């Protein structure tokens, strides 16, 4: 009896411990964020600067919303069309294409921009085709159009993939019933697909909106005019002028908007239960010739939109390749990038794991409010401008420790970790929770302890999802072009930075080679790790 109560006590203890692990991780994250904000504000009050909400700032706020909304709606619109078209079609290589669709989300923005130029630029492929037919090429890639183009390019393929997966998730029974009822295309869409797409679209909408809202590199390159300035860009300019008070206040505005958004999203998506969708042959309803034709057409057009810049870039890289490109600097940049990406992905995974363990435990003990709070706040880096995080860290470390290579590396790793964390948690939290609820009784009966649980159940059941999340954060970090562009490199060279340097010194051939390496790296990593849809996919229903 005594032994038993001791065991129970121990279990309670460990439950408390498990719950607090995540809050420990959260405290770490929040203190980093606090540190960043504190450094900026403490410096700003030492300076004389004033904040005014003038015409210009109002137009910045307006434009940030406007372009983000448009980008998001367009991305979702095209995603639904392509997902539906792909669902209707079956062809060789579809799986690979779907994987690449997922990967395009991670393409470094510098790479996307150069790809877009090759196709849509004034001397790009399209312009040449137009010139061939002696038409007038009027596409103006700078300004709103270019920004939307790049944002849609980055986000719509990813959204396509998610929506495609949810279409696949519709059960065979429902499909068969629909066919028996003789539903047409629109009825199918309205009653069967639209509800599922809509449910999937809400979190997607939130994610894409947030990303576009705080988009930096793209707006910087394609829209840089006071007319087309986002908050993130305004922050960048304020920091450059050392007008830290302005930067800090803008950051708070963005943080506020971002948190509000996250809150709405959490509220919208928290009511769902989870079921696993099962592997196996899905029943595919037959489609009419007309539908098939339109599916082919739209898939062809939209896939061309996605693949043409990537193929053009690859072609350019191969055409102009020379062995002299393989310099010391290239390898240095390559390995530094790998190191940074690996470290930040590992750290982010570790923090995410702590948070997820706590979250599972909180839910198990029905502390749902605490759990939501934990998840919401661990996503807060998504709401805070990356610019502020990196420059805040920078200010803190530099004014207290002086500069060194180590510090710069640490800063890059930390800011990338924070960036990746919300994505990982979003990926892992629900499947992990689902698994833990499913195996709750089993574990109790078998007396499986915490570490064996992780080893035997969590990591083996969700192995692919974990690998995928790791790859995800790895790729997010490898393309990062934030902090290093800001404050100089102290001899640290990363691939995106090297690419930037090459582009800036007219070495376009060499630049296309480096861009290609980045592209290849992204796609290889993604294709190898993105196996999750085969096994342990948790579908919301």
């Amino acid at each position, binding site marked *: 009896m005594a032994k038993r109560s001791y065991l129970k006590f121990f279990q309670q203890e460990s439950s408390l411990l498990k719950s607090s692990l995540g809050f420990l991780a959260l405290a770490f994250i929040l203190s980093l964020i606090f540190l960043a904000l504190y450094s900026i504000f403490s410096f700003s009050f030492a300076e004389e600067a004033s904040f005014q909400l003038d015409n210009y700032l109002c137009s910045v706020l307006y434009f940030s919303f406007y372009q983000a909304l448009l980008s998001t709606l367009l991305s979702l619109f095209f995603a639904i069309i392509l997902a539906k078209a792909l669902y209707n079609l079956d062809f060789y290589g579809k799986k690979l294409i779907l994987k690449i669709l997922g990967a395009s989300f991670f393409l470094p923005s510098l790479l996307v921009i150069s790809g877009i130029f090759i196709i849509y630029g004034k*001397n790009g492929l399209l312009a040449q085709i137009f010139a061939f037919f002696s038409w007038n090429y009027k596409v103006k890639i700078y300004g709103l159009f270019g920004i939307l183009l790049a944002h849609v390019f980055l986000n719509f393929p990813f959204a396509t993939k998610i929506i495609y997966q949810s279409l696949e998730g519709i059960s065979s029974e429902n499909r068969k019933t629909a066919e028996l009822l003789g539903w047409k295309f629109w009825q199918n869409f309205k009653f069967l697909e639209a509800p599922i797409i809509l449910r999937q679209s809400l979190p997607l909408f939130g994610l894409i909106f947030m990303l576009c809202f705080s988009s930096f590199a793209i707006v910087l390159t394609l829209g840089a005019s006071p007319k087309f300035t986002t908050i993130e860009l305004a922050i960048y300019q304020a920091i*450059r002028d050392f007008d830290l008070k302005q930067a800090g206040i803008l950051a708070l505005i963005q943080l506020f908007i971002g948190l509000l958004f996250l809150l709405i999203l959490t509220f919208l998506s928290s009511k769902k239960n989870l079921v696993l969708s099962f592997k196996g042959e899905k029943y595919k309803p037959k489609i009419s010739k007309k539908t098939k034709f339109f599916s082919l057409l739209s898939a062809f057009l939209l896939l061309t939109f996605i693949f043409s810049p990537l193929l053009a870039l690859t072609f350019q890289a191969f055409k102009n390749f020379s062995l002299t490109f393989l310099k010391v600097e290239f390898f240095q940049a390559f390995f530094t990038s790998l190191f940074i990406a690996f470290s930040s992905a590992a750290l982010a995974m570790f923090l995410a794991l702590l948070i997820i363990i706590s979250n599972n435990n909180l839910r198990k003990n029905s502390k749902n409010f605490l759990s939501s709070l934990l998840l919401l706040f661990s996503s807060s880096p998504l709401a805070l401008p990356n610019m502020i995080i990196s420059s805040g860290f920078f200010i803190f470390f530099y004014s207290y420790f002086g500069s060194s290579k180590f510090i710069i590396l640490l800063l890059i790793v930390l800011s990338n970790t924070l960036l990746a964390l919300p994505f990982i948690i979003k990926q892992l939290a629900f499947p992990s929770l689902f698994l833990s609820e499913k195996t709750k009784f089993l574990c109790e009966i078998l007396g499986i302890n915490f570490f064996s649980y992780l080893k035997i159940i969590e990591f083996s059941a969700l192995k692919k999802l974990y690998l995928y999340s790791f790859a995800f954060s790895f790729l997010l970090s490898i393309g990062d072009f934030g902090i290093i562009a800001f404050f*100089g490199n*102290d001899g640290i060279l990363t691939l995106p930075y090297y690419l930037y340097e090459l582009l800036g010194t007219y070495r376009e051939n060499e630049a296309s080679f480096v861009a290609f390496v980045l592209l290849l790296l992204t796609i290889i990593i993604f294709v190898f790790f993105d196996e999750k849809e085969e096994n342990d996919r948790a579908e919301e229903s």
Partner: protein
Amino acid sequence: MRLLLLFFSLFSFLLAKDTLTVYSYNSFAGTWGPAKELKEEFEKTCNCEISFIGVGDGVSALNRLKLEGSKSKADIILGLDGDLLEVARSANLVQKHQVMKPELSTEFWSEDFIPYDHGYLAFIYDASKTQDKPKTLKDFIQNADKASIIYQDPRTSILGKSLLLWINKLYPEEAQELYKILDEKTATITKSWTEAYSLFKKGESDFVLSYSTSPAVHLKEGITKYQALIFDDGNYEEIETAAITKNAKNLKLANEFLTFLLSEPAQKIIMNKNIMYTSIKMELPPEFQDLEKVKIPLSYSPKEVLQKQKEFIKQWQNALI
């Protein structure tokens, strides 16, 4: 044992070379900038080690110096121009040098900053495509095609800022209106010179704001089609400077380095890599001699720039939104 340690530390102290840390902008310190060759040349004579650190651009370098305060490793700050000199002075970041004034090809000289190169703002164009050359800046802005000009953002680039100064210097009354016209003629506004120039080379625009010396790099490759627009009413002058920081550890070495920057070998390296005019009077290579000379150099003093630039930028911003 302790004696041995002492001996070792003494020995290593004797062997250790003096180091000089130079903060400069990225394209100066980067793989293709003049830093590499300057380092080799200077280290030949000084028994020292010199380390160039690329810190974004001039503004970032200055910000970094501000941030680091007394902890900064920098002995020299290199790459400041325009109002940044005045900002550095008022933040008490630099000190007086002891460099003898050589015979200069620019007017600028001060007791803290030395000019290491200079150039003139000019719009570069492809002469094989565009024939008629406008006579004045206003002429140019008014007659250019729609979406044909790329220039740099005044908020992030010294060139862009200098363009506003240029316009204000020549046409103070009409600046606002000219910005609006310029906006119609603008293909894009880039963050820095590098993006602007590579876009121009890709054919994204007919004109790009750069320096009157930019065609030299193409002349060297035998390409003559890129030319600079030299206006009858003047081109704005930009002078790049270097200074010793307030907390410099080795003043003697720092002064030697500044003197070295004004020597012929160093000037030649800088000219060839930065594609700017030398600041001392010396024989120029053929590709520089072939360049069209600027008729009237225009400039504001650093103090004036500091006073006026915020207002100019605001004016430009409001004209464009």
